[in-house]
């Protein structure tokens, strides 16, 4: 049974993906999500970005809970 996750991309990552919102089947962990994104969007290979799950920063191998809002965050450059 697959479940969908909502992905929000920001800054340089949104530019490379060509969109700031995506829906994907939940691959299970952030590590698998990164691999899936890199195969779908080869421009992301080697690009530095972090993940937030439901607006909290996460480790790169965290599990993705059902229905999570996953954000792809390039290095911050506010101020």
């Amino acid at each position: 049974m697959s479940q969908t996750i909502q992905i929000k991309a920001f800054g340089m990552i949104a530019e490379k993906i060509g969109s700031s919102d995506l829906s994907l089947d939940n691959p299970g962990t952030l590590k698998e999500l990164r691999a899936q994104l890199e195969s779908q969007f080869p421009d992301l290979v080697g690009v530095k970005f972090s993940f937030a799950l439901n607006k909290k920063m996460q480790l790169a191998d965290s599990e993705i809970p059902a229905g999570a809002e996953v954000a792809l965050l390039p290095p911050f450059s506010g101020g």
Partner: protein
Amino acid sequence: MEKERKPKNIFVQGPISPEKIAQSIANHSSKTDIGGHSIFLGQIRADEKPEGNVIAIDYTAYEDMALEKAFEIREDIFEKYPLTCMHIYHSLGEIKVGEICLFVFTSSKHRKAAMQACDELVERIKAELPVWGREILDTEGHVWKVNT
């Protein structure tokens, strides 16, 4: 009495006007226990890049997360320093060279708490808020801002 603090919107569409800053200072004249203010103003610099000269920065943010984080930072700083007031404003959208994009304002009885809190706030805002600057160049291209 301890005041209850709630998340506030820190984002301003467009540049922060000098008039807003002046008004914000004036608004504190009735708070007569304040003895010192510290203010940091971030201004868009005309950087020269190999790809062209910066003429503006277009800021975007993960607003919901940024507001939660800004609230957490506010609480930490209020806990750490004896402050009377703290205000944070960050621009979104296109801000031209020479315009103000960040306004951080702390007030306390004595200057040192205000100055140290202001400095720490600016560092944490730059490091921890999910905000991004797209530097617009005079060559019609752009580069993504990198915080140092």
